[in-house]
């Protein structure tokens, strides 16, 4: 796990984050967005059932 992210998650990062820590955290967020957006097809391509439409 990314050490900066780990520090943030463990509530061990001093606030506010340093510029470098903020940059690393933002890089993680950007990577997450790119990965999720780049890997997900249109939802309509997957069959789905609404629970209350039985």
């Amino acid at each position, binding site marked *: 796990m990314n050490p900066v992210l780990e520090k943030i998650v463990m509530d061990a990062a001093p606030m*506010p984050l340093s510029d470098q820590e903020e940059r690393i955290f*933002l890089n993680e967020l950007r990577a997450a967005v790119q990965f999720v957006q780049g890997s997900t097809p249109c939802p309509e391509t997957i069959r*789905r*059932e609404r629970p209350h439409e039985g």
Partner: protein
Amino acid sequence: MAQFPETPVTLLGRLACGDCPDQWNQSWKTFFSLYYPAMRICVVRAFMRYGWKSVPDHLVEDTLSDTFAALSKSQANFRYDPDQGRFRGYVAQIIHWKVKDRLKGMRREPHEGESALSREVSADTSAYESLAQQEERAWQYSALCLMLEEVSKQVSPQTYLIFEQTKLQERAPEEVMRELGVSRSTLDNANHRVMRKLISLASSPEFRRELLP
């Protein structure tokens, strides 16, 4: 109805509440887009545990379809209990059941007395381990994107837009200020506010357990 903590299951809470179809549909699309990549890897890895070296795309998609349908139904009663473990573990368990169902249907379930573990060893270990790492990363990415989604609901649309444009898309602040007609202090305050909320969410118990390996 079960009581949900504020995060990260607010999205799941919205899915459990079927009172408003528009909201349900929007939440379902969000859930799908955030979790599809991690679930896809999880499906492939589940087949590999039964000795499959590769899994055809159509089989992965069919199994995912079964899983999404099961999740959709389970969310009507909301069987996921945060006290029982991580959300990703709950989803992975459903995926495992759906893979077993598929294998039974194909008459390729493991022979009696032959454990999944022994099959796992016979599978390509390095490929399996590589996939396990990819899956771990994918669940973490899902949780990070869920954090962004939750924060976007907690601040004004303009505040989140400023953060998205300047911090995530790395556009020049001056350009965003001009486009949105906001001052430098408005822009700085917006970014500061979103960052604080993100950091606070990341260290909350609910997100911590989803983000840690």
